[in-house]
């Protein structure tokens, strides 16, 4: 049965910048550090720490001790200010990031709408990107042509469909990305808020397409800043703050609390 269980999930990721990306500099700084025997305090407050091994690598604690469980039928909204860990949580659920600690158990086929370009190659044409996407989903040949027609009609790209993506306007890119991303019918749907982009005319078409996808999924997890979107789509809200779950419960109660919190800031 489809389910998501997280227990004590923490995620720390390295931020590589400047010297820590260099093999030569890392080697030398290691040597230097072992001579100087830098003492580092064990408990560092805040979300950022330096790597203990002295590679000069910044560690960001993105999620801390998350324990959550989602059952079929749940439409979960993630709220919280920027950097609260909403997208990181989605990426963990999608299997793109692996939790550093804790148990992650995801049962069911999942599909993530996190990156609006869903990994498309800007140099390839729309059609070529679609073929790659279809192969990624493991579709059969006869299905691919059906999907091709579907996407072509939906994205309204016209002749641009056979031109490289880098020539597209941003609206066209979003339309194609959206059309592709909404093709599969997964058990678990994970969405970041970008899906609300696009022009007005596209908006209503998109919503229709999205709602088909949402209704066929067992579990939906959406991260968004738009409270009205969350009110319409979700029946449970998880309010995140600095990588923790601050509140978790039915939509109205949590969103009201969240709104109070926002207006007091």
């Amino acid at each position: 049965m489809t389910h998501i269980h997280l227990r004590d999930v923490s995620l720390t990721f390295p931020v590589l910048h400047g010297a820590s990306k260099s093999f030569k500099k890392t080697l030398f700084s290691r040597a230097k550090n072992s001579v100087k025997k830098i003492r580092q305090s064990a408990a560092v407050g805040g979300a950022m720490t330096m790597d203990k091994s002295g590679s000069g690598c910044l560690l960001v604690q993105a999620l801390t001790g998350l324990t959550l469980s989602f059952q079929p039928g749940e439409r979960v909204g993630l709220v919280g200010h920027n950097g609260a860990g909403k997208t990181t949580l989605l990426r963990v659920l999608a299997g793109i990031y692996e939790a550093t600690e804790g148990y992650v158990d995801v049962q069911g086929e999942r599909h993530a709408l996190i990156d609006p370009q869903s990994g498309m190659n800007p140099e390839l044409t729309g059609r070529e990107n679609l073929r790659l996407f279809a192969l990624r989903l493991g579709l059969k040949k006869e299905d691919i042509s059906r999907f091709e027609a579907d996407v072509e009609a939906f994205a309204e790209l016209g002749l641009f469909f056979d031109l490289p993506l880098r020539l597209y306007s941003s609206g066209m890119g979003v339309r194609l990305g959206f059309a592709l991303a909404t093709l599969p019918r997964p058990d678990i749907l994970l969405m970041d808020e970008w899906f609300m982009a696009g022009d007005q005319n596209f908006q209503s078409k998109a919503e229709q397409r999205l709602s088909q996808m949402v209704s066929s999924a067992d579990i939906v997890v959406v991260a968004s800043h738009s409270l009205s979107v969350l009110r319409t789509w979700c029946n449970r809200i998880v309010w995140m703050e600095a990588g923790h779950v601050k509140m978790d419960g039915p939509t109205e109660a949590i969103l009201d609390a969240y709104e109070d919190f926002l207006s007091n800031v």
Partner: protein
Amino acid sequence: MTVDPFVPTTSVQSGSAPDCPKSPVSCSGLRADLQETRKLLRLGIALGWLDIKLRYRGSVLGPFWLTVVSALMVISMGGLYSTLFHMNLASYLPFLAVSLMLWQAGIAAQVQDSCGCFIEAEAMIRASRLPLPLFAVRVVVRNVIIFAHNIIVPLAVSAFYHVWPGVAVLWALPAAALWLVDGLALCLLLGALCARYRDIPPIVGALMQVVFYITPIIWAPAQLHDYARFLLLNPFYAAIEILRQPLLGHEPDTLLWEIALGASALLCGAAALVYRKARARVVFWM
């Protein structure tokens, strides 16, 4: 809706996935990644094929440009070095044509290309859950296609001098298979290292330059006379020779095959080791 965050009765202890204490989703490791990659083989091939199409879009000769360049190289170097080494052009040129193809379109191209294996796939790696060996398949497919275009030069030289390898050429098949495995291992090893340390690709490039001169590619091992046995210490020599001998019509040397197999085993071991440590972190290094 329930506020209860975690239902212990349905909790996943390590019991449901015994060999995987940490997290059931990620217990996979190298073997599971390879299995997943096998399922996505068509995607890997399509990616490699599209890379070639893209690289030569708008070019009349396409990948054959490389063939033209290697043909020029073989002709000019053949003339020069046959004089320098006092060798008969009719025997030297077929050797040089095969050697240069194996080195340039084979080993050197594959090693250098392996470095970018994961870096170039950043967008896909960050957007969805894909097994990383998929990108190794892509790089190898790409290089096989380019290699195939370069076969023309030695073929033309053979036709010109009417020298054909004969049945021994069948020994090239297992050698080519070993090359493919090595190519995949190189991608996983160098791809992971280069994703973490971005200054490794130029280091690799410089080292390969050295290897080119100390490996018998433009010169024949026999020219070293008594010192030829030291070549056995160079794994690139064995790797080249197991494919070059059959292509030139010689039965392969058992010792060289043993060295090549041993070196491949070491390479695969190193790749597995590095990949195991790196696989979950590559996405953060992008």
